[in-house]
């Protein structure tokens, strides 16, 4: 299910970082990648230069053992990337995260965010953090809401090609209004986390449930930094409250804040039955 990836290439990515990303994709068991470059405006003069650059990247990616195809398209970047990914039957979309200032994002928008918002496929965002590179996948953190996203995310987490060693199951919850209810809530959350841990236990060397109170997007960032995880996995729910509809869901906010690679799996994404580890 993660064997085929649609990789968005803007041609502005630093080469070293892009290579690290390709190496990282190997951790998901990916074998085939489609490098997609979309430009809002494409002239005949630009075409050969873009083809040449893509070809070079394609060769580099091939060195990691991938079967690589390149595609150049013209149009709305986010829409075309999503369409191409579906057309090529990709298991997920991979993006190299490029940080932008708040002002630039507000004025010009953020293409990666748009792709994430529009996508019904899982989206992997490679973001090793400032001045860092990371190609291995040791520690994975799944931030679960213990609701509808578990059903979509768990098959990926226990997939045998997912090579993480240690899994943290994090639930960030809302404190109940009184101590007695809070105790019940915590017990229920821990029970659910332990159940999830049991379901994932066979696929990792160790699984650790963590229960925390606070705002989800803040605590996920904090815990990811504290535990120094290589990948944050989150589900993307379609049921958004009014505030999330305005400022974006937790899954949409996280890439801007974590400074870590993130795998975002929409509840809606179609999923073939995975082969377990």
């Amino acid at each position: 299910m993660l064997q085929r990836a649609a990789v968005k290439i803007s041609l502005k990515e630093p080469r070293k970082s892009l290579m690290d990303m390709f190496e990282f994709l190997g951790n998901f068991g990916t074998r085939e990648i489609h490098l997609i470059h979309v430009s809002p405006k494409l002239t005949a003069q630009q075409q050969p230069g873009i083809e040449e650059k893509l070809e070079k990247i394609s060769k580099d990616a091939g060195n990691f053992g991938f079967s690589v195809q390149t595609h150049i398209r013209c149009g709305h970047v986010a829409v075309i990337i999503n369409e191409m990914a579906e057309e090529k039957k990709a298991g997920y979309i991979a993006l190299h995260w490029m940080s932008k200032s708040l002002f630039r994002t507000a004025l010009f928008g953020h293409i990666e965010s748009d792709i994430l918002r529009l996508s019904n496929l899982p989206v992997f965002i490679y973001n090793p953090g400032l001045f860092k590179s990371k190609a291995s996948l040791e520690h994975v953190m799944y931030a679960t809401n213990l609701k509808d996203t578990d059903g979509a995310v768990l098959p990926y987490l226990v997939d045998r090609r997912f090579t993480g060693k240690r899994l943290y199951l994090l639930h960030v919850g809302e404190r109940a209004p009184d101590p007695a209810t809070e105790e019940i809530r915590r017990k229920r959350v821990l029970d659910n986390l332990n159940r999830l841990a049991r379901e994932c236990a066979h696929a990792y060397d160790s699984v650790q449930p963590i229960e925390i109170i606070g705002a989800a997007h803040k605590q996920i960032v904090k815990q990811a930094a504290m535990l120094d995880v290589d990948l944050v996995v989150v589900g993307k729910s379609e049921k958004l409250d009014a505030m999330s509809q305005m400022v974006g869901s937790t899954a949409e906010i996280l890439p801007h804040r974590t400074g870590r690679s993130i795998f975002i799996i929409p509840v809606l994404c179609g999923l073939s039955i995975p082969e377990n580890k």
Partner: protein
Amino acid sequence: MKLKNNIVFVISLLAILIVILAGIFSSEALDRGSTWLHDEIISNFGWFYLIATFLFLVFSLYMALSRYGHIKLGMDHEKPRFSYFGWASMLFAAGMGIGLIFWGVAEPMSHYMSPPGYIEAGSPEAARFAMLHSFFHWGVHPWAVYIVMSLSIAYFSFRRGMPPLISSCFYPLIGNRIYGFPGYFIDILAVFATVFGIVTSLGLGAMQINSGLASILPFEAGLFSTLVIIGIITAIFMASSVAGLDRGMQIMSKSNIMLAVLLLLFLLLMGPTNMILNVFISTFSDYITALFNISLTTYPFIGLQWTQDWTLFYWAWWISWSPFVGLFIASISRGRTIREFISGALLIPTLLTFVWFSVFGGTALSLELGNGSGIAAAVVQDVSTGLFHLYSFYPFSEFLTLLTVLLLVIFFVTSADAATFVLSLMTSRGKEDPPTSKKIVWGLTVSVAAAILLFAGGLEGLQRMAIAAALPFSAIMLLMCFCLLRGLRYEFRYERNKARTDG
């Protein structure tokens, strides 16, 4: 007595004694310090009071009209402990009663004589302004302030099973830290505001009772007679407090409301009835039309000083009163739904207040505009005499004065009784039936402090300290709104929906 269980009691009692001692031995310094603090707060944070109070009103309306409206302040099967009449009487007695008697004539007349600069004093326009702003200051806003406080306390204590304390409302935000320093700090601040407020009210109110009695009885108003009045009131409210809410407080509140309504009807029927009804209808219409506008206006270009002296003073005063009134109202509202509670607390006392102002203020203005009765001039000289001056235009004026003094005494007793109950509750970790010993300690502290400060001076300084406490409290109350919303949202998301699917 374990110190840990009584930490709020010990710290607040000691701190209050220190401030009161400062008021006795250095009343000038207290006066200067409190004036500076009060002026700084009102001039720098006045806009904040306006916004906060308006938000409390919006929040109350939202709570009443939203899906949370049918949630009960108690368990689902619980029924209200007090009848509608008993509940509304106690609401009114604790929240407004005494102030209305004091200001019923004085406030419209004060605005009439000294409106903001853009209105000519003593003109019909000033009369209209005076009535509108009397409605405004005593209308839905103060009750919205009380509602926010009492609704939060009632929800977290009666529905969520926590002790009826202000700190309990912060559990969704700070969790178990409510049992530590942040919780103690909030409760101690509430005790401060309540004690300072009730001490000044008792002192100043005793002076008004004294001058009322002196106008009809053959004695001269002086310090000794004021002290005797404080002593008598203390004895009555301590007896009522020890008797408990069900008997003492409820019976006195009901009888007082009946007396107040009788007085109101007498003045309505014997006075310029048509004029009063016209004043009521017109001012009510002005109030509804201008509600949004005046709620958020400080008149920054002309009239800012007036707004600071009146509106902002009132808003700060209501907020500083809110821990006491809020806790008391919460304790008598168990078993009512949120919608029932808000609509009752917002509409019943407000409507009665509007009628009261129309009758007393409307009559005074009518007399003043008609033949220059001199009531306005009397109010300018001494605010507390306005009402007694008005009676001189009615038959049985001495009887009316006596009735008013009786009303004042009972309202004072009910307020002091409620305050003693609330102070004991807050300093007993929210025990529903606080120990009698604490009621006695607080009752005596309040009365002795009022008597001593009356003698030494410093009552007004203490009042300004109470108003200063309103600033942190308005921020605390905004957080309470947030916590209450979180609590209710949790209940709906995780408990109601689960119960529905389980069912």
